[in-house]
């Protein structure tokens, strides 16, 4: 079974884009299932189910979502195998951008949209940097020049990935993306495989449920912001 990891900020168009690509994959005879990781709530599982795509939904709730992902992906892969799938696609929101759910050897796709702002690529961490394929969506609602500038800025952050402009509404671009998915490597189980990037260092008292503010309540992995010893007073305004 192939495992493909897809991640990107909320509302970047991941599900719409995937529904189109899955259509294409099924037409070529590849059976596909999806595991959707979300934080609070999701209706995307219904969108997959209504098209007859086998789907699992995982809600992280009050857990760090990427920790939730990494502790569950193996069981999900097992589920995919039991379903007899040729390909399992894991879809998750980008969350803090500090981590990424990308796994070595599993095709890693980052989805971002043209509307997210010109500085967004530079602000994104491993989620963009470590991807094999970057899918840029919503190109139909910005100008050609803005698409080019945005793509250029993505390229600056990730020099290696193939960049695909895709329209999740019409499916334009699905052929190329679909063929990249179809060509991705078969994985023989996930045990012992590695994430492409480490998770942030945890654990502090707040991870464990503390809600009060103040140094008395802080424990564990705590980092202080650098504040200059003396900040010059603002000049007086006449």
């Amino acid at each position, binding site marked *: 079974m192939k495992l493909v990891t897809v991640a990107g900020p909320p509302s970047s168009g991941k599900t719409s884009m995937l529904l189109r690509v899955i259509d294409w994959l099924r037409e070529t005879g590849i059976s596909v299932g999806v595991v959707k990781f979300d934080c609070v709530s999701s209706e995307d599982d219904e969108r997959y189910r209504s098209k007859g795509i086998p789907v699992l939904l995982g809600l992280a709730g009050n857990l760090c979502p990427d920790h939730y992902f990494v502790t569950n992906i193996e069981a999900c892969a097992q589920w995919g195998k039991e379903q007899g799938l040729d390909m399992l696609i894991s879809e998750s929101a980008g969350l803090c951008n500090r981590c990424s759910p990308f796994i070595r050897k599993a095709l890693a796709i980052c989805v971002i949209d043209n509307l997210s702002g010109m500085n967004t690529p530079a602000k994104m961490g491993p989620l963009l940097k470590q991807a094999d394929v970057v899918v840029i969506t919503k190109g139909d609602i*910005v100008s*050609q020049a803005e698409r080019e500038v945005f793509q250029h800025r993505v390229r600056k952050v990730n020099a290696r990935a193939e960049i695909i402009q895709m329209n999740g509404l019409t499916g334009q671009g699905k052929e190329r993306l679909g063929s990249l998915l179809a060509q991705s490597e078969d994985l023989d189980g996930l045990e012992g495989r590695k994430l492409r990037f480490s998770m942030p260092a945890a654990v502090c008292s707040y991870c464990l449920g503390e809600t009060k503010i103040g140094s008395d309540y802080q424990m564990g992995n705590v980092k202080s912001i650098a504040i200059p010893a003396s900040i010059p007073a603002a000049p007086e305004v006449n």
Partner: protein
Amino acid sequence: MFAEITSITILGGRSKSGELEQAEITLVPGDLVAVVGPTGSGKSRLLADIEYIAQRDTPSGRQILINGEVAEPAVRFAWGRRLIAQLSQNMNFVMDATVAEFISMHAECREEAISGSSEADLIARVISQANLLTGEPITQDSPLTSLSGGQSRALMIADTAVLSDSPIVLIDEIENAGIDRRQALDVLVRNQKIVLMATHDPILALLAERRIVLKGGAMVKVLESSADESALLVELQRADAAMIAIREQLRRGESLAPTAFRYR
């Protein structure tokens, strides 16, 4: 990779019902071709096939040749994106920048296009070209997001013509609002672009020397515009100008006489 695009050829695939596509067409720089057919006849698919440089691997089964040759995957999927500029139906700017900042940002990612001309000169050229297409002048300091629909379209077309080095331009209908569409097409063609335009507008369709007719997902014929049609075009443009004149009068708050619509 191709140093220069001298032609693109669209080889037929199959219609939605599986019949062989009869027509094929080769386009060279400076060509303006209209793509016509009812909604759902496959106009967007045709433009998508060209954008994708399809190699019989899209639902239509068409093949697109560049300079008479099959494009290498490297051209298709990496550099290939630079081949085509698309002007879509929705033309909005979302970038928080001035017109000048925007042009210089775009120039930055099209480095080779600006060699030999300074940035300030380039900005001035794009803006003055845009201002030839729209009645409401754009300035360097205008915030992009404050441009009207007509100004946005004019700037986009000028930018594509002057700055972008993509040799092929695909247009999905140019809206009429506030721009001179004939000039807009002229400026693209003059800059040696290959322009394909999907349209339902009779004036735009007849402005093209050839038109690809689509039906049921297939190219059914390629028509050359005839002398009769050129004469008809002149008449349609006069009528269009008369319509625009009335619009202007209404804008200015004038009352109209029953004889206001005169184009003969």
